[in-house]
């Protein structure tokens, strides 16, 4: 174990570990991952992260913003490697942390965790450059084949625990409703500059809060409801958001599960259980359900559409709604697509894209986000493992009001952060050169 702690310390300093140690690490990781199902169950509280893409210094920033391992329980939704200059350091550190704290760290597979893609997008070249041979690349690819395809987060609270910095704000006093949404924007010093807070707006189909323009710094505790861009709604019948806080009690333990996948849904997969049947221990195929989970994207269409990426599909809000209902999910969390604001909710909050690589490729100018789901303590800490059968009548669609109120969205806190500085002392960072057309 001390070897492992040493490796972690070394990787945290952005220094590589010897090849023999990589081989051993990958072997251990595979032993661990082989025991995991295709869909890993994860208990809230958990912090869900999107693409990293070898941006090591930004991964350090993520841990600074979200809390260190093992204090914080993490779920990374793939695309650890390629594009950035530190794919090896990033992936090996995450893998070390996985082996060291298996219950505090969940890694699922992204479309870049593949032999074919890594030879085009940089990880293979990086391995050759840094280790002088393809051995380490081969070890890593073998680990990729064992990564889970998805995760199911259970027991998330519909309430947001007040974040530490907001302890004294009025937010904690908010009546609990149908899921809550909190965004914190952290400035370069790691201080919260903007904090917006609101109940879920079911009326808006496309919620991407851009509160960064609210001139920071200022008092962090934006009083609930008085932010002009987040009007409180009185609640339409059938949304479970009606009334002003009286109807919340009793709903909190019925938060639906959150499915996490890298890309999205597949026309070949109508239930979460279907994912469990895939034989995942292989290179990502060019088509089929496993490919779709890692490649698909939500889009403002109806039904299914062809993906411009050449793999996976596009899927519309009706697909998400149907899938969530069938599987008693309150939310699908996925990564895979660059979002300038760090996160983007679509389809009445039925799906969210979380993107965790700030200033992607050192070029895109975007901020990044991580999503925190709180633990539901209303049931004495017991988790209702309600995936599959819970709260539904025998296949007969109930009135929409009762259906929707049976699955409550979890409270979600997004922490939005910017890229780490590149030229800092103590952190050997090569000045990245992004390509342009000159």
């Amino acid at each position, binding site marked *: 174990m001390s070897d492992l702690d040493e490796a972690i310390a070394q990787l945290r300093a952005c220094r590589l570990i010897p090849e023999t140690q990589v081989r051993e690490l990958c072997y251990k990781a595979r032993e661990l991952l082989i025991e995991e199902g295709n869909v890993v169950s994860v208990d809230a509280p958990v912090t869900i992260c999107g693409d990293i893409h070898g941006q090591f210094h930004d991964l350090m920033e993520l841990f600074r913003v979200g809390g260190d391992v093992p204090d914080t329980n993490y779920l990374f939704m793939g695309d650890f490697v390629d594009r950035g200059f530190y794919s090896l350091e990033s992936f090996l550190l995450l893998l070390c942390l996985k082996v060291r704290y298996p219950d505090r760290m969940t890694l699922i597979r992204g479309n870049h965790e593949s032999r074919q893609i890594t030879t085009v997008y940089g990880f293979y070249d990086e391995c050759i450059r840094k280790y002088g041979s393809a051995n380490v690349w081969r070890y890593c690819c073998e680990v990729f084949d064992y990564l889970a395809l998805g995760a199911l987060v259970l027991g998330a609270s519909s309430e947001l625990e007040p974040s530490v910095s907001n302890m004294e704000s009025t937010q904690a006093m908010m009546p609990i409703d149908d899921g809550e949404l909190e965004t914190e924007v952290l400035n*370069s010093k*790691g201080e919260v500059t903007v904090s917006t807070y609101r109940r879920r707006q079911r009326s808006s189909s496309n919620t991407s809060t851009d509160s960064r323009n609210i001139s920071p710094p200022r008092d962090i505790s934006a009083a609930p409801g008085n932010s002009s861009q987040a009007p409180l709604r009185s609640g339409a019948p059938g949304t479970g958001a009606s009334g002003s806080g009286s109807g919340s009690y009793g709903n909190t333990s019925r938060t639906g599960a959150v499915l996490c996948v890298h890309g999205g849904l597949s026309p070949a997969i109508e239930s979460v259980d279907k994912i469990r049947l895939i034989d995942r221990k292989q290179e990502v195929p060019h088509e089929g359900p496993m490919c779709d989970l890692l490649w698909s994207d939500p889009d403002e269409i109806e039904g299914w559409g062809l993906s411009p990426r*050449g793999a996976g599909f596009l899927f519309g809000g009706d697909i998400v709604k149907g899938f969530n209902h069938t599987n008693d999910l309150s939310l699908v969390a996925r990564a895979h697509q*660059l979002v300038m604001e760090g996160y983007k909710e679509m389809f009445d909050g039925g799906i969210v894209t979380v993107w965790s690589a700030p*200033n992607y490729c050192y*070029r895109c100018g975007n901020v990044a986000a991580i999503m925190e789901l709180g633990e539901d303590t209303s049931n004495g800490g017991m988790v209702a493992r309600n995936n599959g059968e819970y709260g539904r009548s025998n296949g007969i669609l109930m009135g929409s009001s009762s259906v929707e109120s049976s699955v409550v969205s979890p409270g979600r806190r997004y922490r939005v952060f910017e890229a780490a500085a590149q030229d800092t002392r103590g952190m050997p960072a090569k000045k990245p050169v992004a390509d342009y057309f*000159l």
Partner: protein
Amino acid sequence: MSAPQIPNLNSLRKRGAPGRLRSRGGGVGPDASSASKDRVVQNTDNDASVSRLSAVQLGYIEDRFAQPLTPAGLETRRFPIINRGTYVRTTAIDCLVSQFVESYTEQHAKKQIISLGAGTDTRVFRLFSSTTPRSDLVYHEIDFPANTATKIKAIHSSPALQGALRNASSPGVPNDIEISDTGDALHSPRYHIHPLDLRLLSKSTPDPIPTLQDIDPALPTLLISECCLIYLPPDQADSVVHHFTTTIFPPTTPLGLIIYEPIRPDDPFGRIMVSNLATRGIHLQTLNKYASLETQRRRLQEQGFQGGQAAADIDFIWERWVSEEEKERVAGLEMLDEMEEWKLLAGHYCVAWGWRGEVFDCWGDVQEQE
């Protein structure tokens, strides 16, 4: 929740770095520093040729002149997103150029192209060696002497490049390629390389403006600025174009201008682009003045291209100019995973084209972006 033991990289930087960057430059005279700035701009051509070779080797574009015109040892495989951008940029300009070259009027059988800051551009060789030889085309390139000398050296040592020029010269006239003693100027009946700092063509210089050998002021002429004018200060950039539109060419001469350059500096991607390039010493000097498709069109109008002014960004051109069949072919070459990033990048480059004279009427049908 936050982890205090993880160092805050940003705050470290705030306290640290500023001295380091500024400490240089003291004691270096203004001439030396402006020469080194020029060198940075001259070297942007390497970037372009390396990208072109990458796109050629992967099958995006066909260009057997890319290899001999790329400096040895720089060969690099670019990311798919860059290759696609190189593809769209090249084919978009090719499309406008070939419409001009092929447009026929009895009055104007012979035509002229002047490429500003041409660097190692291969277009002239491709035109002269195409299946329909452009026997009525004269091609001029203008660039810094350092760049033209490099190009002439490359021509010297490449049978392929020489072959293309031989096709272009009149049959039966041997050895009609003339190279200056300094090795930085080339003249032949159809192809001229002028070693000239473009800024000397702007009125802001006190010296008399140099003349360009063998430019025929009566021929319908196409000017091309492919990432060139943007490196000049705005007034000089305008003045250089003005020199062509009024001093060299009388108002009766049909004249067109194609500009390819970055736009939209004011969104997050644009801001990072400006600062990333600035750390390499590259300053996109007209970018703020011509920041949008609209300002590009106005620029063309103000510079006297009264026949028409149009512009489109690279994303639009990929979507609308490239046929579905060709898109499928290009998409099949490499998996382009990063659609959002592509849209961002491609949205920050534009092609703008303006013209006067009916030889250019063919451009009126080219689809532009509102």
